[in-house]
């Protein structure tokens, strides 16, 4: 389905932030902001939901914990009981202390990798994926605000453009996607 999208470009993140505040107070829905670096405090202004990545990290960590515990129990106790330093070799519980460092490391490994990979997938930025940003300059020193017409049915394209121009844009672009 064709959709009209307006891209407003700024050369200062504070100008963009103030502009976004002004637009949102008028009832405009801003769907996305592209920036070379994280803009502090932009999330609540444009209404980005709190990330759930932390919850996923916890779940990945639990998976790591379970895998490490199960794996070591199987390798060191069940399948081939190992006697290291004269420690009791037929019980996981009595040997648990020796396994904790590895359990900890594996938990961190799974949580960190799981979180990083999830992040890349959710943002569609896995290596080799096509770029999502509308203008390559947003990876350098420009900031782009994206406003979709379908999300702002109360306004016409020209209304939006007038409002955007008020906020100090340096370039305005309209695209059909």
């Amino acid at each position, binding site marked *: 389905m064709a959709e009209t999208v307006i891209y407003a470009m700024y050369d200062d993140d504070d100008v963009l932030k103030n502009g976004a505040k002004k637009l949102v107070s008028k009832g405009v829905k801003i769907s996305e902001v592209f920036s070379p670096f994280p803009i502090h405090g932009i999330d609540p202004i444009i209404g980005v939901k709190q990330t759930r990545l932390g919850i996923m990290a*916890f779940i990945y960590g639990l998976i790591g914990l379970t895998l490490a515990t199960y794996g070591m129990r199987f390798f060191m106790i069940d399948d081939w009981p190992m006697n290291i330093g004269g420690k009791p070799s037929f019980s996981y519980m009595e040997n648990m202390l020796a396994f904790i460092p590895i359990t900890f490391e594996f938990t961190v490994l799974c949580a960190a990798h799981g979180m990083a990979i999830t992040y890349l997938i959710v943002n569609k930025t896995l290596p080799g994926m096509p770029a999502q940003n509308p203008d390559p300059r947003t990876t350098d020193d420009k900031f782009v605000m994206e406003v979709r017409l379908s999300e702002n049915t109360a306004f016409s394209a020209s209304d939006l453009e007038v409002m955007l121009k008020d906020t100090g844009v340096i370039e305005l672009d309209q695209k059909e996607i």
Partner: protein
Amino acid sequence: MEFKIANKAKLVTVSLMAGGLTMLAIGLFIHMGDHNFLTRLLSNTLINSFFFFSIGLGALFFLALQYATETGWYATVKRVIEGLAGFLPVGILLMLVALFTLSITQGAHGHVYVWMNPDVYDVNSHHYDEIIDGKSGYLNQTFFWIRTLVYLATYYIFYRGFRMRSLEEDRVGGTEIHFKNYRKGAMFLVFFSVFSSTSVWDWIMSIDVHWFSTLFGWYTFAGMWCTTMTVLVMLVLYLKKQGYLPKVNDSHIHDIGKWTFATSFLWSYMFFSQFMLIWYANIGEESTYYIQRIEEYQLMYFGMFFINFAFPMLILMSRDAKRNASILIFVGLIIVVGHWLDVYVMVSGGSMGAGASIGFVEIGMALAFLGLFIRVVLTNLTKAPLTPINHPFLDESIHHEI
């Protein structure tokens, strides 16, 4: 805004002290005739003096750390940290009393500090102990007192300096004081990095005089830091609830909550590192410490580890929990008790051994010290504006957002 102690807080602190002293008196009356009465009493003064002294010291360390790292966010809670550090003069006095009474009773007749008993150095006595005799170059009363006085004097001098400059900054402003604090903060950390280990070797580890652990200093220090952060977050929340500290927002609370969370992990890590290495190597002279505590204090020792590790980990993990006053207070109260038990097991394990029990004496004295601690800290807070006036990072701190 000037802080005034609420009448309720006055009542609570006075009744804590009065109730504690009454319980202590009852306890003393009951146990007067026990053969280990003096050991028990003096162990408890050491436990409580050290525990509350270390909260003040932890606050001083944290303050110095903020100065040395030129941190910005903490400016609005700086006076609260100073209020906690302001317990130091009283804490130092308590430590001196506790150590002095132990010293003149020969380490409570050699039950608390075995090495203070002159018999262990006497070859003809049946108490003669070759290992302690070998350590006598370091562990003798004269050198012990020289070290103790050096530690306490250093802490006191740095506390006085930080406090004086902090109040001066309110009057004159500028950045000169800031850079002076930066240098002094770094210097304090250098002293503290050595003294934090050696002082607890002297005061606590020498109770189990045959045993030694290099990690012991850091372990105790981590517990001290964690307690301080917990007390700090509870105190800030209390002041906020009373309507003070208007500039402190959720982000500051969140940050101190993170410190609580992180230092709980630091402490657990130290506990585990010390425990696991000794367990793995299984050398007789090292493992005695744990064997004794596992046999005689099993529930308390592992229970204390469990609450100090699992409670903050599971409850404070999420972002929302670290911004929630009731959750922070709940966890805070539990881990303060947990860390008190940690100090209790450290000292009592060596001095009282299997004869230890928590009764009127222990609880009464702890409550009395707690009342005194709260009262001194609150009184300190009344002496200066709760928000520093000319701190160079004040503006940054007011706009702190994470």
